[in-house]
């Protein structure tokens, strides 16, 4: 009985070791797994499959990826992106950009196949972190669209594979921003319908728009309250308090704006958003000292409507 139990515990230990080692293996090689994109059968859309590629150096990596693009996908659902008739005659890789020269036959593809091949090649290559841009040549000349305009550099961002995700990633929303007038001592309220990326916190979007200045609002009389060099390091909301962390450039006063006006443009903008009552401002993560001249940072600021003109 005891020996049987020992036998089972040994088996279990062996299993555990096997699982752990396989996990470790997977994690170590994760950077070598790339998605290879290719057109779906019938050129209906783009699909991808994961392949492991062992890199040696940068240019080998590019050619390895291009090589993978010529292979048949493992299931029958797709067609290789680069077929033998459009095999690139030359590939240049320098300064994070890849230039691929295709033969004349590239132009014979119909527009759907062409766009799918282009998207597959660009999306596959730009996964490699040393490739930022890809441009296509045909017989040494830059690829042009049907209107004769040069297409030029393409990035990972140039192609949208999924309309749903794309449509969903932006939303139009109403944001209240406070800028100042020409005197710099009063706040002016602007309610604007703005489009923002839903992956971003609305607080961050509002503050960045505020820093970006009044071009967000179609008003001639609006003037910025904060230096355009200001960087918002972080903004979080907890217990109805917004914690906004700026870099030191927020202290700069490039315009003749009162300290109060500048500070309350931040506070009022944030408290206009739902779920925020108070604002704690910090500079480089610290709440010691003052905002610009005298307004203390270690204080929770509430909305101030008296400054609004």
């Amino acid at each position: 009985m005891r020996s049987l139990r020992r036998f089972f515990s040994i088996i279990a230990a062996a299993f555990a070791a096997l699982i752990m080692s396989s996990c470790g293996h997977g994690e170590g090689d994760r950077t070598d797994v790339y998605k290879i994109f290719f057109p779906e059968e019938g050129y209906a859309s783009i699909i991808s499959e994961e392949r492991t590629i062992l890199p040696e150096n940068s240019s080998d990596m590019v050619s390895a990826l291009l090589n993978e693009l010529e292979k048949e996908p493992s299931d029958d659902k797709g067609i290789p992106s680069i077929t033998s008739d459009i095999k690139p005659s030359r590939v240049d890789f320098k300064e994070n950009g890849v230039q691929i020269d295709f033969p004349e036959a590239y132009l014979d593809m119909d527009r759907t196949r062409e766009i799918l091949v282009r998207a597959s090649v660009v999306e596959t290559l730009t996964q490699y972190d040393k490739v930022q841009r890809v441009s296509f040549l045909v017989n040494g000349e830059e690829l042009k669209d049907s209107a004769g305009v040069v297409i030029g550099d393409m990035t990972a961002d140039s192609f949208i594979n999924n309309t749903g995700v794309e449509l969903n990633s932006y939303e139009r929303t109403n944001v209240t921003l406070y800028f100042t007038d020409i005197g710099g001592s009063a706040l002016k309220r602007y309610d604007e319908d703005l489009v923002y990326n839903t992956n971003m916190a609305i607080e961050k979007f509002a503050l960045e728009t505020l820093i970006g200045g009044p071009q967000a609002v179609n008003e001639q009389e609006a003037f910025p309250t904060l230096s355009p060099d200001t960087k918002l390091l972080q903004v979080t909301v907890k217990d109805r308090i917004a914690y906004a962390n700026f870099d030191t450039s927020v202290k700069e006063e490039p315009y003749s704006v009162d300290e109060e006006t500048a500070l309350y443009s931040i506070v009022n903008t944030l408290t206009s958003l739902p779920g925020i009552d108070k604002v704690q401002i910090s500079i480089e993560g610290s709440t010691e000292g003052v905002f610009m001249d005298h307004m203390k940072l270690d204080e929770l600021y509430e909305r101030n409507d008296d400054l609004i003109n």
Partner: protein
Amino acid sequence: MKIFFTRLLQNVRLYRSLRFRIFLIVLLIGIIPSFIMRILMVRGYESRAMSQKISEVTNQSAIVAAHLARTDYFSDTSDPVINDELIQMSNLYDGRILVINDAYQIIKDTYGKSQGRYIVSGEVISCMNGSRNMSSQDEENRYLEITVPILDESTGGVYGALVASASTDGIHDNVEIMNRRAVVVEVVIALVVLIIASALASTLLRPFDKVIKAVDSVKEGFDPGVRDIEVPDYTETRDIMEAFHHLMSRMKEVDDTRDEFVANVSHELKTPLASMKVLSDSLIQGGDAVDAGTYREFMLDIAEEVDRENRIINNLLSLVKLDKNRSPELNLEPRDLSKMLRQLVKTLTPLAKEAEVDLIYEEKIPVEAEIDETKLSLAIMNLMENAIKYNKKGGWVRVTLDADMQFAVINVSDSGMGIPEESINRIYDRFYRVDKSHSREIGGTGLGLAITRNAILLHRGAIKASSIVGEGTTFTVKIPLRMDI
């Protein structure tokens, strides 16, 4: 664990209750349809509103697409009229519009975010190549996505595609409001049904409570009032009560019979004792004055009474033994019935002579049957004894034996006083006397016919009496020749 089981048991008990079941059935019948109706209505509204929205946005998109096709928007996207139209539509549906050219490039985005990018999604590609409208829904993010081709009306060629998204928040909000209202109605219905169900459960079963009460009152002690309780509310309760009353009257009959029997037994046992008491008392009172002759006479009388007492007790015992409910053993053996009857006649001839009665025996055919001779001869002897005793001087007793294929038939007829018609069904009852006034002088225990009947029934036979008062009585006994027939 124990608590769990107790609770389970209680639950089972609750579930087995008819009241609870009626309650549950009414409740479910009331609530389930309203629940289903709510789901169907809300779902129906949602799908209808959604398809309406889809066709609305698709139509609007097609109109805009047709407009785009008529202008040269694809070479110059700064046309303010069209841009206004796009923005208006985008605002109207709280969504976003993308215009895509035939190179799959986005040339206009009402959000201004994706201009210049290429769109290679399946919807756009199939729309461009298949030139048909596409629509899809995103339940999670609450929007519709419509893709329509922009077609050249004259050539049928494709200029590009228009992708429009429309928020379905309005529909979802409406669904939510509708659902909330429906839930309120549902809760109200549920409460009303709950009240109705509990009211029905208690009123419908109230007659059964009456039945239970009636039965309970009997359990606790017989209540003569129970006889009058009727529960006419339902056929079922009426039937139950009828059956119950039937049972009760049967019980009462049995009870009465037993009481009578006990009274009879005590009375019969007391009678000889009382005689002995009187006789012995007079001897004691007489003291020495009583002469030996009187002494002897009295002692003979006492001895006679003791015999009588003894006979009654023996008869009672044999009656108990013969009681068919106790299924005493029968010593069945093939016997010659003629021989048995002749022996009985011989035994009783002195008694008949003393009573000045002619005892006649007739035998049609000799009969042999499987019988327990001791018990059956006792039974027939009782019949013959009675025929002699309850006769008149110079009368006759005729015993005949006959048989058919299955049965032996013994008739015992007499020319005696006869039995009145109203008594003929009670003569087999224990201690029953037709004429109580004569019983003392005739003697007997009052158990003879009861014993006879029991013995015959044990043989699976039958006994029948027919009589005319003043002319005589005939007892007919039928005994199967073989018990296994």
